[in-house]
């Protein structure tokens, strides 16, 4: 029963995060990425990090302490030919914990998702970055420890 409550709690948290997840690069700066519209969507960078500062990942790592309270999955695409949706599928061990939808906009875009950490989240995780068809673009592996 406690597991179900925790699951719902996590789901609500992640739902909030989904709506709060914001592009690292605001739309107002779209002209900055103006070139390469005709090219294919390309993942430039993906990493797990402790936070986002100045629209860039802070302390990229593969092991995170639960004390941090949150963990972030950062990614940047260049070019982004058209508006597209990308998914961050968070797996705890081999079990899907949550799937977060993120939007990318031309000409290039950086964004992130994050989860709140609880005591029961300690262990190995992975984030699969997929397109809307489920094709895996990249996998990031990390662990949550004490």
């Amino acid at each position, binding site marked *: 029963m406690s597991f179900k409550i925790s699951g719902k709690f996590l789901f609500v948290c992640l739902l909030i995060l989904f709506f709060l997840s914001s592009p690292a690069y605001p739309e107002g700066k779209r002209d900055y990425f103006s070139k390469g519209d005709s090219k294919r969507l390309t993942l430039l960078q993906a990493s797990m990090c*402790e936070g986002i500062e100045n629209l860039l990942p802070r*302390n*990229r*790592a*593969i*092991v*995170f*302490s639960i004390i941090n309270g949150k963990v972030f999955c950062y990614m940047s695409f260049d070019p982004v030919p058209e508006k597209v949706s990308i998914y961050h599928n968070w797996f705890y*061990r*081999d079990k899907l914990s949550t799937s977060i939808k993120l939007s990318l906009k031309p000409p290039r875009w950086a964004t992130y998702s994050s989860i709140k950490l609880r005591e029961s989240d*300690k*262990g*190995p995780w*992975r984030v699969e970055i997929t397109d809307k068809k489920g094709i895996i673009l990249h*996998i990031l*592996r990390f*662990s949550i*420890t*004490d």
Partner: protein
Amino acid sequence: MSNLLSFFSSIRWQDVVDIIINSYILFRIYAIFRRTNVFRVLFGVAFLWFFQRIAVSMGLIVSSWVLQGITAVAAFIIIVVFRNEIRAFLQAKSVRTLLWGVPRKAVGTPIEVIADSAFDLAESHVGGLMVIPGTDDLEDATQRGISWGGLFSIEMIKSIFWHDNPVHDGAAIIEGDRVVEVGVILPLSHRTDLPSDYGTRHRAAAGLAEKTDALVIVASEEKGAVIVAKGTHLSIMNGKEELVQILREHLGIPARDGDFPRRELEFGIAALVSILIIGAVWFSFTRGLDTLITLEVPVEYINRDSGKEIVDTPVNAVRLYLSGTSLLLKSIRPEQVAVRIDLENAVIGRNSFTITNENVSLPPRIFLKNVKPPVVEVAIDSSTTRDLNVQVDWVGKLSEDIFFTSVQLNPEKIQVMGGSRILENISTIYTEKVYVDTIKETGKITVKPELNPPSLLIAPGSKDRITIEYVVEKRTR
């Protein structure tokens, strides 16, 4: 009638062999030890055991405990008491003697001559003591006299016990056809129930007979009678024939032709009684009051196709309700009971197996009454191999001064064998736990993969060790 038929039809050939072997052993014990002290000791031990069982059944705690203790040391008592018989038995020169021979002591002993000599002495009113040893050693019971070693004859006996002979007061010991010792001093009996006219010679004869299994012949000087002492009995011989018969029985010499039917009859009765006793014991072991016990037995799966995997068995052990006699049930050893399910015809998916007598292996005369649960479900999957990504399972307290920036694994993937349904849902194999507590700087370690579920196996040829190269950076504040 039908019960009787079903009883006989349930007897196995092994039971018949069992009864025959043990009946023969019992019969041989009788044949070897009959008319000896050993037989009385055996009876004593048997009674001891019998009363111990009664004491147990009546709930006499102390009595049963004491009797059990005595019975436990009975094995040592038997070895000490039977030492001569055991030695004689083991020294048997042929298998035939071992399996069929009847002990024949002092073969060649001239019993007719001994009997003639005894009556000759008595009629001449010459006192004499002749000892024919049994299996007991006489050394402890007598004071040794003078070695003689002469062939036995009436004349020699007469001369030994002649009044003027210096050794005439002692006893003559006869072994085989020789007088081996003369002037032997025998222990005197302290019995008070002996006739008042019995003198020292009679008391000496009674004394040795009480202490050993020897037979002592007394030629009475005053009465002119022949008296035989054996065990606690003193018997006056009414004639030479009676003495000859007693000597034959004592020495185990086959009776004359006319006595054969009697001996055959005795052995025949002994054989029949042996069969009846062992049959009764067998019956009480195997057909006594039914007792019910329950045993928790693990289920063994046999004949599994190498291309199939057992992926789920909700029932690992079943409870067997067994019946039989309490003695047999108590003696069951765990390795004698097994529940086996044959997976030869099992199909991919869920299989139900009903446990019957054919699945349960039990010791003889133990019967299966019930099984819980009666049906066992087994999920079978086809076996396959798959390349799985490896991920480090970091654990422990991460130092606040550092952070792990990257990790490189070699190999990054390993090939794993297992049930296809299991492997369908697995994409990652994790390493054994790697503790971060002690890691302060960049380094390398080698670990094993932790296969979960345990039914998974690393495929032949795939690496079973993973090298982790990690990069650690100091945290800047």
